[in-house]
């Protein structure tokens, strides 16, 4: 048992301090206001202070920190994307993640399990090769593997999928990991707070003050805050924020659902994704199977659950793992995914001076948390986006320069 826990047993008073200070009312002005106290917003606050010495920052969270998509995703971290730009970006995120528990001194249960994207059709196999080749090119460990190797990593998997969709092979991505999603938000919150950033929960932005094309402040339910720089990092709420500044974007909100089973002793060590069966699954450290599927097919701005989602998902889970018939699903939930037409985020500057966007994360925002925080901090500090996120700029749509991730659309995230 690690010695760090000893103090809890020995001290009479609980020796752990607050993760972040509870501030009463926001100050009159800040250098930077970050809207959205999820992983991304908090990471941006953390890196603004740590990397750029900008700590006069307020993070405004409508509800509680990490309560949006940070706390609703299935916590998969990977970088096996289709475009070199995508792979580079997410690989940078994976690299930070690998040392993040130590950096934030919070055990994020970052667990590298290996990630298999199963291919049930010849055309899926082609896409797997495409991704593998691009990954290899960029130096990320992904390769196409055959059924034998899948069976070795996950002997319980029925490779015929109960005769419904036999598995031809997979894209194996060694760095694929899962992490404790809440912890990421909390860790960044604690880090940002320690550098002086202020976190406000239950603080809603009601409007954004733009004059002559420049941001000059935000109106909140706790008063007006002057600021020249505003970062929107609100995932599924992005269109509401962009509407406040009169900015049009391609973002459309679709719910993304997930569910979780009762805990059971560990048996599934890898992360499995099947694009054809619309399933992704991993087993948490508590022993639950955490499962997700593809996006809901139509726009809804709420986190409601549907029965057909869980019916479809469990039916496909049983195709893959027939012995789970009597394993029980405990809970289902949903997040709001801000989807873009090319399945890539929108990051960086906008036509409004001082208004920065970290959005369009769709179903893949969690894995990008560290790197989006870092690059958005860089963008705000320099008022210029780094090369790493150039490809994700908002203006790409006007320029008809959409990113190539759309090719991987058939593959689950």
């Amino acid at each position, binding site marked *: 048992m690690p010695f760090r826990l000893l103090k809890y047993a020995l001290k009479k008073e609980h020796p752990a301090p607050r993760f972040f200070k509870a501030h009463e009312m926001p100050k009159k002005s800040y250098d930077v206001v970050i809207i959205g106290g999820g992983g991304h917003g908090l990471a941006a606050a953390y890196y603004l202070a740590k990397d750029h010495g900008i700590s006069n920052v307020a993070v405004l969270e409508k509800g509680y920190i990490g309560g949006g998509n940070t706390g609703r995703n299935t916590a998969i971290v990977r970088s096996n994307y289709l475009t070199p730009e995508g792979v580079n970006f997410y690989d940078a995120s994976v690299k930070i993640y690998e040392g993040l528990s130590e950096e934030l001194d919070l055990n994020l249960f970052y667990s590298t399990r290996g990630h298999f994207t199963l291919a049930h059709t010849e055309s899926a196999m082609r896409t797997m090769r495409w991704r593998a080749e691009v990954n290899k090119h960029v130096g990320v460990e992904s390769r196409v593997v055959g059924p034998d190797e899948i069976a070795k990593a996950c002997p319980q998997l029925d490779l015929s999928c109960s005769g419904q969709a036999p598995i031809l092979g997979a894209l194996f991505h060694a760095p694929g990991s899962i992490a404790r999603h809440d912890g990421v938000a909390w860790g960044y919150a604690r880090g940002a707070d320690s550098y002086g950033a202020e976190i406000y929960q239950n603080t809603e932005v009601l409007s954004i003050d733009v004059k002559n094309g420049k941001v000059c402040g935000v109106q909140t339910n706790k008063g007006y805050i002057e600021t020249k720089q505003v970062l929107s990092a609100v995932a599924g709420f*992005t*269109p*509401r924020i*962009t*509407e406040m500044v009169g900015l*049009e*974007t*391609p*973002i*459309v*909100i679709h719910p993304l659902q997930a569910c979780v089973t009762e805990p059971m002793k560990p048996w599934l060590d890898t992360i499995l994704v099947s694009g054809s069966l619309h399933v992704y699954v991993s087993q948490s450290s508590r022993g639950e199977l955490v499962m997700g599927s593809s996006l809901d*097919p*139509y*726009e*809804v*701005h*709420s986190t*409601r659950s*549907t*029965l*057909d989602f869980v019916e479809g998902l469990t039916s496909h889970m049983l195709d893959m793992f027939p012995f789970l018939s009597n394993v029980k699903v405990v809970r289902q939930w949903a997040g709001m995914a*801000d989807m873009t*037409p090319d399945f890539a985020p929108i990051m960086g500057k906008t036509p409004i001076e001082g208004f920065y966007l970290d959005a369009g994360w769709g179903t893949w925002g969690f894995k990008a948390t560290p790197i989006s925080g870092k690059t958005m901090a860089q963008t705000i500090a320099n008022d210029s986006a780094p090369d790493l996120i150039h490809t994700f700029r908002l203006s790409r*749509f*006007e*320029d*008809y320069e959409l990113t190539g991730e759309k090719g991987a659309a058939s593959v689950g995230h």
Partner: protein
Amino acid sequence: MKLLTCPINGTRPLSEFIFGGEYRQAPDQNTCSDAEWAAYVHNRQGAPGDKKEWWYHSPSGTWFIAERNTQTDKVARTYLLADAKKVVKESK
């Protein structure tokens, strides 16, 4: 499962329908600027609220318009596109 009412075939579970996206009027392609067209093609009214949308009833092959609130997911009414003018007039 949610119910939706096809103006021809009546009320059915959502699984019988395909979502066709927001109903939008394209700008005049002969007079609009490239930027306006690019915005029409890519951008969307993403904020929640009452929207006109295309829906398709699969078993019968019927396209129709649904006026739906994208936050509450409540459908105010549905009608054929051809009846849109009539519907607007009636509601006035």
